[in-house]
């Protein structure tokens, strides 16, 4: 950056600040709201100075929501746990199924392989609402409605295509000869898959898993229809804050802060993998 003038640097700084403010403002504002009562939130004009309170967080963690018309039971912590459990298990199942499938699609061209891969991708094209009604009917018949297994199954619609297609690309980027070299030196194809292909595609698998986790975490409509209160994730659980005596903005904000923390932490931690994943080109022979 030796050739940038002072003016250029100032302009660049200003532009960066603008972008950061634009994207960070909602998060910062929600973070601030989570420490305020409904009254201070709804003050007009809004004020930056307020007396912080932990009441919102206490209410969420204890599960007792005090409103003008009495005390309500909310299952927020249960919802948070549901989100963690559903997303983690779904991603784990999708990785277990998707990574070997991605390897097969990347390395072996068999009859109809492209069609199958595309069909799986097309699950992401169809709006969820389109399949929701028949799915609900089937699930009720099969006894899968309102079960974790049923939800994890449906979550595969979200996770599996993502993982399959991203990881497939990473496998295709590994020169096949690296694997051949390992196989010809006296190793089976399964050993090659485990010792060569998996480690080399590792960053890509991590990136795909992370992305799938975020998508699963953010899912709303499947869980809304297919799960009742005790199986609902936070995305649906947040609806409970719209009460008969008004919308509990403080609690909603606190709930959002709590529910984005895991994904945010994961994203920050896995940033390294995402960058590593993008520089996989270093492998090329």
């Amino acid at each position, binding site marked *: 950056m030796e050739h940038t003038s002072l003016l250029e640097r100032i302009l660049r700084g200003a532009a960066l600040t603008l972008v950061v403010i634009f994207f960070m403002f909602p998060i910062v504002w929600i973070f601030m709201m989570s420490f305020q009562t409904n009254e201070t939130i709804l003050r007009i004009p809004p004020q930056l100075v307020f007396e912080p309170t932990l009441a919102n967080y206490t209410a969420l963690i204890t599960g007792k929501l005090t409103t003008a018309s009495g005390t309500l039971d909310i299952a927020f912590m249960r919802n948070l746990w549901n989100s963690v459990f559903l997303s983690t298990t779904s991603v784990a199942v999708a990785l277990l199924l998707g990574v070997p499938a991605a390897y097969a699609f990347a390395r072996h061209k068999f009859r109809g392989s492209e069609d199958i891969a595309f069909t799986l991708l097309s699950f992401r094209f169809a709006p969820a609402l389109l399949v929701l009604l028949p799915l609900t009917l089937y699930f009720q018949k099969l006894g899968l409605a309102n079960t974790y297994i049923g939800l994890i199954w449906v979550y595969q619609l979200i996770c599996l295509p993502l993982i399959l297609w991203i990881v497939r690309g990473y496998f295709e980027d590994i020169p096949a*000869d690296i694997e051949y070299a390992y196989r010809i030196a006296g190793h089976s194809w399964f050993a090659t898959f485990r010792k060569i292909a998996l*480690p080399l595609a590792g960053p890509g698998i991590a990136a795909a898993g992370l992305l799938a986790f975020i998508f699963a975490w953010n899912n709303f409509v499947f869980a809304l229809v297919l799960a009742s209160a005790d199986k609902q994730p936070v995305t649906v659980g947040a609806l409970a804050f719209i009460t008969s005596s008004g919308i509990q903005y403080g609690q909603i904000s606190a709930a959002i802060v709590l529910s984005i923390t895991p994904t945010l932490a994961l994203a920050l931690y896995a940033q390294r993998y995402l960058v590593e994943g993008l520089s996989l080109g*270093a492998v090329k*022979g």
Partner: protein
Amino acid sequence: MSASALTISGVDKFYGPIDRGVHAVQNLTMEIGKGEIVALLGSSGCGKTSTLRMIAGFEEVSRGAISVAGRQVHRLAPVKRNVAMAFEGYSLYPPLTVRENMAFALKAARLPKSEVDAKVASIAKLLEIEDILERYPSSISGGQQQRASLGRALIREADLHLLDEPMGQLEPQLRAVLRGRIKHFIKERGLTAILVTHDQTEANALADRIAVMEGGVLQQFDTSDRIKQRPANLFTGTFVGEPPMNVFEAYVGTAAGKINLRLPDGLSLDYDREAFSGPVRDALLNRERVVIGVRPYAVRRSKDGVPATVSANQWLGDQTHIAADFAGGSLVLVEHDRTRLELGAPINVSIDPKNLHVFDQASGKAISHGMELA
């Protein structure tokens, strides 16, 4: 050279459906003896790499059979074929150092560590990569990666060593040195090696026999001398040899007791009937049209020769390449002294019938080489 190390019989390779896909290798049959070094020589897309990969087991054999050391292997997985291979794209494992890359095949064979270390050290010395053994593939140059990959193949004990363009990335001096050492190494241990290359110098220097391939068809499989002196057809004639053989279409005629090979532009090479041996003379006179070929170093300048016009004159430091417009085409001749010839200068060239290669005009098959029938 007693037992057969590799037998390829009637192998076809189709990419796509059999008989309808791309026919990359056509009815290939060859036999390689134990301890032999064979080069598969050809231009890109001639089927040489497909052949190598079928032997290694990375490509399916569409038809035919391959045996290594007497075992039919073409239906076996690569791991069961007991062959070692050096890849054109090096294919080193990025997470392992050069030393680990070279050693892991031996580890799979459960050799003791001291023996592995000794082997790695000796191969590294041979290939001059001792100083980079602890480095990772991404931090070394292409030439070093190629040597590491070659080392990884040579270190193994296998029935067959397959080397795909093993020295393409090396500097010329190093290449010349390594060629000698690698040949010595292979011969000393009695290994059998198949080398794929498009570089005829490499094929000549390393291989006992050369298999020239083109369009998926084996053109000729012979020693380098015989391929040069007795090319089986027009393709090997023009493909092997530097600079390439000069070829011209000619009409065979007789006039005034002489045999005339009439070239375009009204030129004619006239020879006494006795200049050819009996069988060659008969073969020539039986045909109306032939293709004649002559190596550049066999073209002589002489006063009573056929006229040509110099179009280029290059002194390469040890020989002169003169190109001349001749008979509607171009003729190249090589002389060992520096020749001062201006562009456009008229010269006269003659070709000794002993150096004349005659090919069939339609099929390209060789008819005669000098005084002998093909």
